[in-house]
Each structure stands twice: as structure tokens, then as C-alpha cells.
């Protein structure tokens, strides 16, 4: 394992990220709008008869999940840009194993998307969407673990896709058929317990569901599955995606 190479690839992602201040604001604006407008605006009108239901609190984990999903996939897919604009060649002729290159890319991109997630979490706490009462060292630690797993998993998905594509032409397809369904079926914004059985069944195959559900368990104390199950499924998916992305990346261009 070439730690030096992994480190410098990670460092490069950090530099690029912190240099583009407008990009950080751009990344956060959509989740912020969701939280404020949808959360606060809908919490009064959105109610399930007979149940005390706080929509603002309900969507906080969903908005975090959404932020992580989008920024992870996009930052993984940025490998396509590196392919098109040449920098990937500089990386590929270096005497560094493909595995280290993928790991460097995964860690760098996942860190960026994790920072986005943490910023949204802080905003959610500040506007009262996540109650301070739910916070403890343990719950924060658990939330961080969930967030890291979501980042690693979906960055890997992005890299796996980028390894198979040579330009951004297929991007719209990926958005429509992969990212959006993953997002909506994860129960980020709508409780799936009341959805038709078929939809609930399909949703069971959505890895993000377990991430959002786990975060809900941590912050709200209520979740569809036990937290241990959420954690196990997500971790399994994460490992599988890391393996898949490094396999596809190694075979790229052959």
C-alpha cells in the first residue's frame, strides 16, 4: 500500500475543494432550502392522523442522506472529467498500483462529501430540525459512522460508473435511473411505512434507505429497522462497492 500516493491524492482533492468557495455554497444551498422551506413550511400541514408527527425532525436525516448521496456520486464521477481533461493520464503513468489510486480517490472524494454532510447536520441542529436533546457523544459518533459509510459507498458507485464511461453523455441517464430513484426510495422525505407494499419491497433494495433509517434511529430514536441491521447492511454494501470500483478501475482502458 502506497500511503504517500494515497495521501497526495487525498490532499489534492482537499485543496481543490477548499479553493472553490462558491462550489461549497452551491453544494449546500439545495439541502438548506429543503430543510428550511419544506421542513418548516410543511411541518404544520403534513400530518398523519392520530400520530404526533414532526416533519421538520423527520426530514433532517433525509436531507443529510440526500446531501451525501448527491455529493458522493458527483465527486466520484469527476473521474470522467479527469479522463477527458488529461490529468488522469498523469496519475495512470505513475508507478503506483491502481488499487492505491482508487483508494486515494475514494478517500479524497468521501472526505469532501462528508464535510458537506456535517455542515448540513450543523445547520439542521441550528434551526432546530435535530433536537439538541438527542445529541450525545455516542449518538454523534454513531451518526458520523453512518455518514462515513454512506460517503464511501456512493463515491465508489460514482467511480465505478466513471470507469465505464468516457464522457458525460450518459450522465442524464444515471441521474434519472440511478440517483433519483435511490434518493426517493430511501424514504428521505416520505415515510415509506405507509407506501404500497410493492414500493416498500423495492425500497428494501435501496442501500441509502438503511443509511437514512440509521440516522433517524440515532436522532429521533425511531427507525424501521434496528440500528445494528442498518449498520450491517450499509457496511456490507460499502465494502462491495469499494471492491467493485477498484475492480472496474483496474480494468479501465483495456
Amino acid at each position, binding site marked *: 500500500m*502506497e500511503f*504517500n*500516493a494515497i*495521501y*497526495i491524492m487525498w490532499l*489534492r482533492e482537499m*485543496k*481543490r475543494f477548499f*479553493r*472553490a468557495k462558491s462550489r461549497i455554497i452551491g453544494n449546500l444551498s439545495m439541502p438548506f432550502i429543503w430543510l428550511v422551506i419544506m421542513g418548516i413550511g410543511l411541518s404544520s400541514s403534513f400530518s398523519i392522523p392520530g400520530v404526533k408527527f414532526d416533519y421538520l425532525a423527520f426530514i433532517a436525516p433525509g436531507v443529510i442522506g440526500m446531501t451525501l448521496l448527491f455529493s458522493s456520486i458527483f465527486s466520484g464521477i*469527476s473521474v470522467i*472529467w479527469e479522463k*477527458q*481533461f*488529461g*490529468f488522469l*493520464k*498523469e*496519475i*495512470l*503513468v*505513475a*508507478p*503506483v*498500483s491502481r488499487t492505491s489510486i482508487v483508494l486515494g480517490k475514494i478517500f479524497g472524494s468521501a472526505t469532501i462529501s462528508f464535510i458537506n454532510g456535517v455542515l448540513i447536520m450543523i445547520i439542521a441542529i441550528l434551526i432546530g430540525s435535530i433536537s439538541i436533546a438527542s445529541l450525545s457523544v455516542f449518538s454523534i459518533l454513531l451518526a458520523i459512522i453512518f455518514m462515513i459509510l454512506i460517503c464511501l459507498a456512493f463515491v465508489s458507485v460514482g467511480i465505478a460508473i466513471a470507469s465505464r464511461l468516457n464522457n458525460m453523455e450518459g450522465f442524464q441517464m444515471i441521474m434519472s435511473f440511478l440517483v433519483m430513484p435511490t434518493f426517493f426510495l430511501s424514504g428521505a422525505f416520505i415515510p415509506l411505512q405507509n407506501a404500497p407494499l410493492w414500493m416498500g419491497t423495492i425500497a428494501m433494495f435501496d442501500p441509502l434507505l438503511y443509511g437514512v433509517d440509521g440516522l433517524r434511529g440515532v436522532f429521533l430514536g425511531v427507525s424501521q429497522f434496528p440500528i445494528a441491521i442498518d449498520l450491517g447492511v450499509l457496511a456490507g454494501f460499502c465494502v462491495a462497492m469499494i471492491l467493485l470500483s477498484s475492480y472496474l478501475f483496474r480494468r479501465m*482502458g*483495456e
Partner: protein
Amino acid sequence: MNAIETKGLVKKFGDFAAVAGINLEIKEGELFGLLGPNGAGKTTTISMLSTILKPSSGSASVWGKDLLHDKDSVRKSIGIVFQDPSLDDELTGRENLDFHGRMYAMEPGLIHERIAEVLKLVELESKADALVKTYSGGMKRRLEIARGLMHKPKILFLDEPTIGLDPQTRRNLWEYIRNFNKKDGITIILTTHYMEEADFLCDRIAIIDHGKIIALDTPEKLKEVLGGDIITVESTDSNALKKLLEGQVFVKETKLFDEHLNVSVDNGGKALPKLIELAQKNKITVDSAVLKRPSLEDVFIHYTGRTIREEEASDKDKARMQVKVGGFRR
């Protein structure tokens, strides 16, 4: 040891063979040129030798390491300057070099030292801490060359190193390239479609067209194939000189014009002093003697029946430069 050896190297894209069986032996310390028109297969050949593309068939060894089975060792001994831009625009010049040094597992102290050296070499010290997206096209090219040298490779590939540069910068780069080769002993493989560049720099040249090598030799020998050089002599007694030269072994043909005498010879450089010595011995005054050599352009036409189409090429260069200068910003 040969720095590079290839046997029947082929690269196919679908049914089309971009490289159609190339056999090469490039010696250690050589400055070797691949000369050919657009689409000849130069970049594809270099991409294979630098492990970026997998050959469809054939084999090769680079610095004694097998290209197909020992890619990591091959990568350790080479440096490459790609034809198309490959810098990170959102990093500074120094950061691009630092990234390179660490990817090549160099010691931090050494990285620091080498960055200073290579920046000085390409005269980019004052721009080192500016973001690369603020560089001009020529500066970017120079930075890429500096980067290729960072880790002191054994073999350096330069794919159209001076493409789109102004004549002044091009001349300077030629000097750098020559120095790396002669002083630092780095084996260099250079592609170009500029005749003067190949002629000026290379020890040996392979002319490549449609994915095949159609001629390979030193620039001088390649040009000799065309029937040698022409010496144009002005003398007060051209007739006597013509008679004198006609019997000499080194003279192939003489032709008298109004003002001067044209003498065809195999090797003009060797023939010229002989000619003058002979004239002096026989008390014939030579007022002037001009040696005209056939250019590589003539050689190219001889082998391919076509010109290398420099014009078309330079249009493509311009387009490339626009990509380079405009770049792509996210």
C-alpha cells in the same frame, strides 16, 4: 542494453490498425525521433510504450522490463510529456510538481530540491505559486516538461513537445531537450511532425506512416538516400574545375551553369574540403562554395509520395492550443 525494444507491436481500434507492427531498437542514451503526419500512429505507439494503452499484439521491453508483464517497473523508469494537456488547472505549478514527486515516491527533501531545479530550467520560478489556469499555453507546456523531468527518468517520452509554441520558445526548448540528453544522459523518444525539429535534435529518426515504419536512420543517412548533396561552386575557371572533378571518385555528377558549377556528391560535408583542397593544388581559385543538403521534407516525399502537410497540421495545433489555453473549468 537497448533502452527500448519492440517486436511486432500492434494496436487495433476495432478493425483499424493505428499501429501495424512496429519493430524498434532504441539504444541507451539515444535521442530518437518518430516523425510522421497526423494520424500516423506516433501517439498510439508512445501510449503503448508508456503503459497507457494495452497493445493488441506484439511485445516490447522498456529499460529491460517486459511491457506486458511488468508494468510497474516500466513506469518507474519512464517520464512522459503527453501531447494533450494533463495538468491540474486548479493547483499551482509548484503543487503540480509536488504531486508528481510524491506519486513517484520521492523523499520530501529531494522533491523540494528538484522542484527548484526544474523550475529554474524552464524559467517558471516567478509563476510557480500561481494557479495553472492563469498560465499561458507556452508556460503550461514548459511546466509539463519540467514535471516529466522531476523524477529523473531513465527514458523520457516527449509527444510533440513544442506543438503550438512560438519559434523563440521552441528554440529554447530544443536546447533544454538536447541538454537533458547529452548532459544528463537521459534517453529521449520524441515525436514530431516538424521536420526542422527532427533534423536538429535527433540522433536517429523513424519515419512512420499509416502505423508502419517506412524508413529508419540518422537524419544524414536518410537524406543521402536521395542521391546525396549538391555543392554549388563559383570559380573564375569553371571549365577547368569541371574537368578536374569529373575524374574524382567522390563526385557523382557535374553540371555547368552560366555563373556556377553544380557538383553532386554522396556526402557534402566530406566532399567540400576535398574539393577545395584539390582546386588549390591545381591553382584554381574558388570564389565561393555552397553546400545544399536535401531536407527531411524531401525524404518524406521520397518515401510516402506525399508532403507531411504541415499546413493541415498547424491548423490542428491551433485547435489544440485553444483547448490548452481555454481549458475546461468546472
